[in-house]
């Protein structure tokens, strides 16, 4: 919204103050002002009123005229002018020799053989309207030679306020409300509005009016006749233009002017079309033509202004074409009303039609404004068209009144909320300057909120704090830390694990952390031959490609691997992200935070890669939990999982995730020559397993003893099966067993296992070691593992 400093100055005397600084303060205390401030008229000078004394056609040009104009000096001035609307006796704006219009300095100039000593100007050239159809026609009685700026408000400072920052301030949608803020900021009084006394018309007949719907809070109207004026006064037109509105005709301009001044939208109907005003909704949808000529679909939720049963306007949004003021209108009915804000907003959205009026109604306008606006309208109408006659009494239906908001608080409350000392006098002065009624007794404040702030904006004590502090100025706050007591803070275990895992994977294993979206990527998965599995969906996805929420991060990562094929012959990616794995009994999503890791390699065998991934998980678990992982063969449940190499990851006997090799069908679509393995771990399940602590083993002073055996292992026997054979045989001196060599043929699988023995108490004898190993070998035989 554009605001004119001249207009604001109608209501508060800002003389002697730095206007730009005031605007800056306004931006910091009230609402955001856009960066560019416009100094209207600053590039215009030397324009005077001139009267055309003679008009001659140019001998050769059809367009040009040779004029003599009177600018109040002794001699008439010769001017060549191309405007079509020149005539003798007309007064216009004239740029003298030496005048400035933008970058141009006016100098005597030859035009088609004749010298022109100046220029007659159109309104667009002076920048006071967009009318460039001809030169300006001045109808006011002003002596020739008068500087135009001394009679018209060409000089002005115009600034723009971001509409979004006015969302909660219905009172700031007009200059008068803005002026109130400037008055408060400048510490100067706000002048009252000049209005007509409407009670003078009480004896006249009332308009037939009835509110039939609770969505209309108040409806005021007045009938007026004999409006003769067609064109608005120049200063009014300038203000409208500077504030972004086009002058149309006096009546339309005046309703707009009122709206820009008081924030109250108004509408003028042809009285012939609104003899019986009813405000209501219709049960059946219909088509309605608004005054912009557009046919709009009205549904059962849209509030309408009607003449009896005939709709004549969409309440709060736009009037109808049929009831508009036309050339032969003699009596008009002026509407000034208030409607339910949410209803107007919804209708606006439904109709996809936002107007200056609806924008204001959406903000919850003050119903107290309606009659004041009419009184102000009449004041201006009479000022500019003295013949206008009021022919009805003010007719005013007031269906819904907001409660008066009265607040009560103490000085201690203000001190506590602000954290600084603001004295009582400042509090009272600030609130009064904003229109609040305040009384203070013994550090207790009683405040009555003005109606224009009480529709939703100021309803409680915390709101009062804002009023006091914003005018006080946040820049003026002395800032300090809190006095709160200190207590230790414990990190959430999942979060702690997450950070540690990221460090291990990045720093130790050179993996890359990526982010992804929480939904399944239809197109990308399709390219990999992975069907999107059924899961909870978005209700309002605008893009069908992202409709289903993912139930695993692995498909996402496989898509990412595909994206990065070619980045390097080997890489690994990971993410800690979310999936939804199902629904609870209450139909709520079961959301899980998962760690997903995928490795890709063109240089390593798949087994090596698979084991590398296992080792990463084992190191993570050992680092964080000081525990070892177990694995159990799993049945593939998803299209991308390898039928043979898929395992459930177990920690302390609990399933915490899955590790596997990618199904060759999918793998080949990503890269025919690469190995791809993946793992996914449930972060909460991982965190839930209790951490073991590091058990310190004192280094032995006695020599250790190694014992190697080479065994032939039948198909299907796992290392974990063999480990059971020595688990209970070690007698405290068997410290570890590792595979140190392996040998494979098609039919034969052999491993050399090294057993390490040591004791902290004695040098071991070969006998006691042999005894243990005999038992181990016997156990191994039981599962068909034989010495080679």
């Amino acid at each position, binding site marked *: 919204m554009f605001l004119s400093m001249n207009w604001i100055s109608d209501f508060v005397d800002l003389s002697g103050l730095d206007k730009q600084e005031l605007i800056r303060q306004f931006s910091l205390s*009230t*609402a*955001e002002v856009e*960066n560019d401030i416009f100094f209207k008229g600053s590039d215009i000078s030397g324009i005077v009123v001139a009267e055309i004394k003679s008009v001659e056609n140019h001998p050769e040009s059809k367009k040009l005229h040779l004029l003599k104009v009177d600018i109040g000096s002794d001699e008439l001035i010769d001017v060549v002018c191309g405007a079509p609307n020149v005539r003798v006796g007309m007064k216009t704006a004239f740029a003298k020799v030496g005048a400035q219009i933008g970058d141009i300095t006016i100098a005597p100039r030859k035009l088609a053989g004749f010298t022109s000593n100046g220029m007659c100007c159109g309104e667009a050239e002076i920048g006071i309207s967009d009318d460039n159809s001809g030169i300006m026609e001045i109808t006011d009685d002003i002596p020739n030679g008068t500087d135009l700026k001394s009679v018209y408000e060409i000089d002005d400072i115009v600034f723009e306020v971001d509409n979004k*920052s006015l*969302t909660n301030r219905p009172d700031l949608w007009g200059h008068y409300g803005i002026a109130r803020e400037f008055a408060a900021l400048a510490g100067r009084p706000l002048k009252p509005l000049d209005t007509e006394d409407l009670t003078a018309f009480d004896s006249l007949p009332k308009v037939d009016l009835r509110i039939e719907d609770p969505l209309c809070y108040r409806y005021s109207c007045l009938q007026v006749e004999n409006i003769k004026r067609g064109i608005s006064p120049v200063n009014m037109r300038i203000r409208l233009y500077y504030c972004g509105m086009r002058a149309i005709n006096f009546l339309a301009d005046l309703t707009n002017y009122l709206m820009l001044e008081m924030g109250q939208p108004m509408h003028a109907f042809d009285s012939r079309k609104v003899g019986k005003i009813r405000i209501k909704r219709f049960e059946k949808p219909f088509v309605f033509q608004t005054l912009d000529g557009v046919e709009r679909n009205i549904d059962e939720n849209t509030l309408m202004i009607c003449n009896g049963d005939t709709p004549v306007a969409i309440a709060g949004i736009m009037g109808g074409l049929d009831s508009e003021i036309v050339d032969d209108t003699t009596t008009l009915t002026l509407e000034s009303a208030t409607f339910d804000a949410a209803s107007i*907003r919804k209708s606006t*959205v439904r109709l996809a039609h936002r107007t200056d009026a609806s924008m204001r109604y959406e903000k919850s306008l003050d119903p107290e404004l309606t009659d004041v606006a009419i009184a102000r309208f009449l004041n201006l109408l009479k000022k500019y068209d003295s013949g206008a006659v009021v022919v009805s009494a003010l007719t005013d239906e007031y269906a819904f009144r907001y409660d008066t908001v009265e607040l009560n608080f103490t000085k201690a409350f203000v001190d*506590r*909320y602000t*954290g*600084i000392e603001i004295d009582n006098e400042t509090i009272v002065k600030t609130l009064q300057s904003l229109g609040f009624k305040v009384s203070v007794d013994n550090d207790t404040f009683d405040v009555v909120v003005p109606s224009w702030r009480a529709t939703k904006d100021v309803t*409680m004590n*915390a*709101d009062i*704090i*804002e009023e006091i*502090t*914003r005018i006080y100025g*946040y*820049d003026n706050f*002395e*800032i*300090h830390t809190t006095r*709160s*007591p200190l*207590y230790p*803070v414990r*990190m*959430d275990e999942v979060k702690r694990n997450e950070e540690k895992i990221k*460090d291990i994977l*990045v*720093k130790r*294993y*050179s*993996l*890359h*952390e*990526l*982010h992804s*979206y*929480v939904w399944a990527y239809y197109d990308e998965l399709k390219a990999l031959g992975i069907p999107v599995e059924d899961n*909870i*969906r*978005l209700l*309002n996805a*605008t893009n069908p490609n992202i409709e289903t*929420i993912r139930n695993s991060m692995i498909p996402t990562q496989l*898509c990412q691997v595909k*994206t*990065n094929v070619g*980045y390097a012959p080997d*890489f690994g*990616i990971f993410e800690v992200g*979310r999936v*939804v794995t199902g629904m609870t009994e209450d*139909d*709520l*999503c079961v959301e899980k*935070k998962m760690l997903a890791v995928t490795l890709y390699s063109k240089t390593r065998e798949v087994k090596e890669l698979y084991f590398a991934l296992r080792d990463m998980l084992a190191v993570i678990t050992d680092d964080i939990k000081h525990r070892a992982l177990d694995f159990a063969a799993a049945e593939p449940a998803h299209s991308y999982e390898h039928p043979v190499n898929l395992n459930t990851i177990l920690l302390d006997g609990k399933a915490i995730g899955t590790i596997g090799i990618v199904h060759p069908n999918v793998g080949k679509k990503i890269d025919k020559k690469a190995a791809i393995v993946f793992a996914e771990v449930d972060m909460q399940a991982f965190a839930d397993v209790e951490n073991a602590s590091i058990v310190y083993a004192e280094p032995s002073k006695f020599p250790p003893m190694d014992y190697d055996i080479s065994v032939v292992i039948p198909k299907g026997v796992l290392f974990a099966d063999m480990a059971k054979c020595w688990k209970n045989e070690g007698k405290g001196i068997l410290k570890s067993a590792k595979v140190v060599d392996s040998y494979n043929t098609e039919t034969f699988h052999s491993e050399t296992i090294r057993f390490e023995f040591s004791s902290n108490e004695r040098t071991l004898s070969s006998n006691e070691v042999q005894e243990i190993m005999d038992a181990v070998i016997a156990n191994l035989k039981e599962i068909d593992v034989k010495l080679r």
Partner: protein
Amino acid sequence: MDKIRELREEFEQKLAQTSDLALLDKVRVDYLGKKGSITALLKGMKELSNEQKKSFGAEVNKLKGYAAKRIEERVEELRRLETEREIALMPRFDITAPADLTRGSYHPITLVQRQCENIFKSMGFTVEDYPEVVTDYECFESVNIPKHHPARDMQDTYYLTNGQLLKSQTSAAQNAILKKYGKNLKENGVPIKAIFPGRCFRNEATDASHENTFFQMEGMMVDRDISISNLIFFMKTMLSEVFQRDVKVRLRPGFFPFVEPGFELDINCLICGGEGCASCKHSGWLELCPCGMIHPNVLREGGIDPDEYTGFAFGLGLTRLAMMEYKIKDIRDLNSGSLKALSQFTDDE
């Protein structure tokens, strides 16, 4: 006696011919070993008279001592020569060849998130995790966003078919955090100090500066006497730490349903320092975080009496911060999954 002199000369010759330690050892054995030439001289003394024995023996021992010493010297010398040879054989490696920088990387969001978390952890704030799928109550109702508020319109929020939604703001965690720590506040006077970073979702078309999935971090503090003055202090402190310099902040009134009073917080532009440039649209200021005093309705809904306790809350766009910090122009790079873009963030500080 001549024999001794001859032997000595012969020994010197042999010694000079040794080119490595193995040959030298052979010389030692040849002369000083049990069957060595010098040892043999002693054995041949039987035929000599006692007097001769005495003087000859002394000479042989002298030779023996001399030979041992010479061998020691030769050992040293050969070792020195060997090292010299080794050095001479060693080429000068080209250390200027490009270093191999292959290593892992963090997502840039992780890096800025950690920076912010560390600042607040150092001030005693807890870091809270929260789901991405939330209820209408969590995201809106509980944080004073009434039914008709525009923020709830379908076009902004992703709703799920079961009526839940993808959280459009980290504020969705506020109510749960107030409830989680409220008891400790009321019973033991432990202030609520929490930050809650998280992924948020908005149903909008994406372009270089708009994403439907992005990260925010929100923080709040609740205690008996939390004030606007405290809020400004914490914001200024946090942002000075984030940007590693003393930032200027300014507050403007801002309207957010979950705070009252609400503010828009600006910092002086980091590019131009406040002079005005293209990045700050020539205003000298960057709008950075919405903040305010927690709305009494929000406290009440979280089970905390607003007459007894006050608090502040603030939001910070982590995605925006990461883009500012690393000068990332296209927001979509962050979720692109492209290692070309995202493998560059290798350090965690």
